[in-house]
């Protein structure tokens, strides 16, 4: 009653209408039934996924999070711009929420779009602690739709997060069941010749790397809004309607390639920010990214939403239908891609190879004399035949993948596949200006040991990255590993460099493919301490993680005060 009174007074005092919403979330042990298996996990308000939180831009939210677990928990509001103490990262933003305690988050909603929330403690997020956030804009949206659905994806695994991490540490290929077999060797020999195949295997064997190392954690069931492929989540529509689908990839480890056979999708939003509409047949959603698409459905037919994992080891599936129970054909998984030498730039150094050459337009132009120095293998004997498949002329070029990469996605119907370079901001948030400095971040790792790092240093051994309030920093990501890393900066926008100047899109996750260099810029406009990490759960947990400290700024004294209180007056 007091609260309501207070809100009424506050509302009366505000010149503009300000909403103040109060929300309660409990963190609970739950059962997760994927249709393939039932597993104990962690959820919100008794379910996984948790509730869809609907906020309104301009609203001031109060969220009471009660921890019903017997371990610490936390909630991170993924993609939300808020004071750093409200960001929910234990050890950085706050101490975490103890068992039995209630922590109250309070922050203004200063943006709109599709986001999500999840635990930032241990492996609670892979274990089910995630939910969706939809923020209605204050003004009108630049596109029309008749109804909308949140389509939240995840990769639910029968093993707990701790178990997965432990297994990966014991054997990095524990979950990889797409490795090349003796049979593959013979069928490839028949196609490309015995020597070429042998040389190819020798080259990979020399590096102790696997072409099939695209998804670390296979064996999951893809869930769409918590439902497995057999349970078939269904969204209803009336023929003629425009349906907005808010795709959120809440996976621990899995990128999905999404298509709705028979429907063209218009991408209108990426990571919560409006983009100039792009019509696509298929798009890839990195871990932790969100994409809003609009489909205009004319016929009274059912359509399958098919989210195939990037490594083709699993899928999530749902249906858009005019009435409950209608289904459409579910496509087969496509053949699993394989990495190529072009994806291996960072590892070529083992053999003293000049990897710049590998990125060249023409692999046949490679100067083999440069590749000497490896006593274990005669590179001059390397057949070009074995590399040709990495240089397939039929593949479209995309600046966000290495040339000749085995990961370049193509639409299953031969149509348009969304690229990062198609993303242009609808309305720039920041003035375009020269960055004040550049910070190079090499994404590094040792696959055999399952260690991941930035600039070769794991989180626990690294100093924080210090930024100054008011700067515009240019981050240069150089992916030296063979895996794709979705890099997530908390608290501030990541302006993805697609070469469009002020129209470069705003994102909160930047996916960096193997052997590529990707730039993003950040207007350093949020003081405090922030997390910055690869959003693949087991990569972050094994060290691909940094603390970012923003010094200076309007709230710096407040920020410092809180910090010193927490760390026992260290400063």
């Amino acid at each position, binding site marked *: 009653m007091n609260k309501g009174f207070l809100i009424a007074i506050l509302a009366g005092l505000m010149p503009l209408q300000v909403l103040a919403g109060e929300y309660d979330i409990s963190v609970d042990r739950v059962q997760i039934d994927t249709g393939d298996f039932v597993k104990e996990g962690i959820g919100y308000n008794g379910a996984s996924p948790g509730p869809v939180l609907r906020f309104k831009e301009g609203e001031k939210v109060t969220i009471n999070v009660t921890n019903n677990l017997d371990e*610490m928990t936390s909630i991170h509001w993924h993609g939300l711009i808020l004071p750093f103490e409200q960001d929910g990262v234990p050890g950085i933003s706050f101490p975490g929420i103890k068992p039995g305690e209630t922590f109250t988050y309070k922050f203004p909603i200063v943006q709109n779009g599709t986001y999500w929330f999840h635990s930032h403690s241990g492996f609670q997020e892979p274990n089910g602690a995630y939910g969706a956030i939809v923020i209605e804009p204050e003004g009108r949206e630049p596109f029309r739709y008749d109804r909308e659905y949140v389509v939240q994806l995840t990769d639910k695994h029968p093993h707990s997060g701790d178990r997965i991490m432990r297994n990966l540490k014991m054997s990095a290929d524990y979950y990889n069941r797409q490795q090349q077999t*003796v049979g593959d060797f013979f069928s490839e020999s028949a196609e490309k010749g015995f020597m070429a195949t042998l040389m190819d295997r020798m080259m990979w064997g020399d590096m102790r790397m696997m072409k099939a190392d695209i998804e670390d954690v296979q064996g999951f069931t893809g869930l769409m809004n918590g439902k497995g492929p057999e349970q078939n989540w269904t969204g209803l529509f009336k023929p003629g309607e425009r349906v907005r689908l808010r795709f959120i990839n809440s996976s621990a480890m899995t990128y999905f390639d999404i298509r709705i056979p028979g429907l063209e999708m218009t991408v209108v939003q990426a990571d919560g920010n409006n983009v100039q509409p792009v019509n696509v047949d298929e798009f890839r959603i990195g871990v932790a990214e969100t994409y809003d698409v609009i489909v205009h459905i004319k016929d009274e037919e059912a359509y399958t939403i098919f989210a195939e994992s990037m490594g083709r080891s699993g899928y999530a599936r749902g249906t858009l239908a005019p009435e409950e129970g209608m289904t459409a054909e579910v496509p087969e998984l496509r053949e699993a891609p394989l990495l190529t030498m072009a994806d291996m730039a960072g590892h070529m150094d083992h053999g003293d190879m000049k990897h710049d050459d590998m990125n060249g337009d023409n692999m046949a132009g490679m100067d083999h004399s440069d590749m000497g120095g490896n006593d274990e293998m005669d590179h001059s004997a390397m057949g070009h035949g074995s590399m040709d498949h990495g240089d397939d002329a039929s593949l479209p070029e995309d600046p966000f993948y290495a040339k000749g990469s085995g990961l370049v996605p193509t639409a299953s119907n031969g149509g348009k596949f969304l690229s990062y370079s198609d993303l242009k901001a609808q309305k720039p948030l920041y003035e375009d200006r020269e960055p004040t400095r550049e910070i190079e971040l090499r994404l590094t790792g040792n696959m055999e040991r399952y260690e991941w790092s930035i600039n070769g240093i794991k989180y626990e051994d690294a100093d924080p990255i210090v930024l100054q309030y008011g700067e515009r920093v240019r981050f240069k990501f150089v992916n030296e590993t063979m895996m794709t890393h979705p890099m997530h900066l908390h608290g501030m926008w990541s302006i993805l460099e697609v070469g469009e100047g002020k129209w470069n899109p705003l994102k909160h996750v930047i996916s960096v493919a193997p052997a590529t260099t990707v730039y993003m810029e950040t207007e350093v406009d949020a003081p405090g301490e922030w997390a910055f990490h690869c959003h693949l759960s087991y990569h972050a947990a094994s060290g691909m993680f940094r603390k970012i400290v923003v010094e200076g700024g309007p709230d710096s004294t407040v920020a410092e005060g809180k910090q010193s209180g927490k760390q026992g007056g260290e400063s």
Partner: protein
Amino acid sequence: MSRLTASMCCLALTATTLATPAIAQEDAGKKTQTSRTFWGVSAEKLEYRYSDSDEELAVIEGDAFYGTDELKFLWLFEGEWEEAHNAWEMLENQFVAQTPVSDFWDAKAGIRIDTPEGPDRVYGVLGLTGLAPYWFEVDTNLYVSDEGDASVDFEAEYELLITNYWIVSATFETLVAFSEDKEIGVGEGLNSTEVGVRLSYDLIDRAFSPYIGVVHERKYSDTANLARDSGGGTEDWFAVVGARISF
């Protein structure tokens, strides 16, 4: 037997006490975002061997580890139980600390305690283990016994994937001694080789993989003579059936 049981119980207890603080530690401190300590137990071989001379052996070989990326503590065990004599023909326990020395190689150091039927030996161990190019898993150690005798062993394993679940693994082991230790049947020079080929199937993840296979054991020169003198064979073919276990 009882000695082994006792040592296993003791180690199991140690492993439990070591694992407990790791769980508590997860939530404390400012490094909560990354996992740092890990453990694992696996038996690469847990098998029954039947030789062409009707010898029956139960064989176990495996390890348990606890530690971080930078430093692991391992208990490595290897035993051969001979049915006919109802005795451990071979029983080795190694306790080593292991640390990375390059991208693919780890160095280790510790002690090895041999307690088969007959004379016991305690050794100091220095070893190198890792993944060689072309996917050969290699483990090699230098041992110096309390009698002052030095020896070197070398093990290599290669896995061939028939499918992603049917796996053929080929193993090679050899021991070379720099001096003779008659009491335990070790001659100078090349002692023995063991070559094995096993076909396994991953039945439950990689946690339980039953297999069948063949193993060839041979003793050489002085060691062979010592074996002959004590009435043993110098060469054996074994049919093996067993399982690889990892959890």
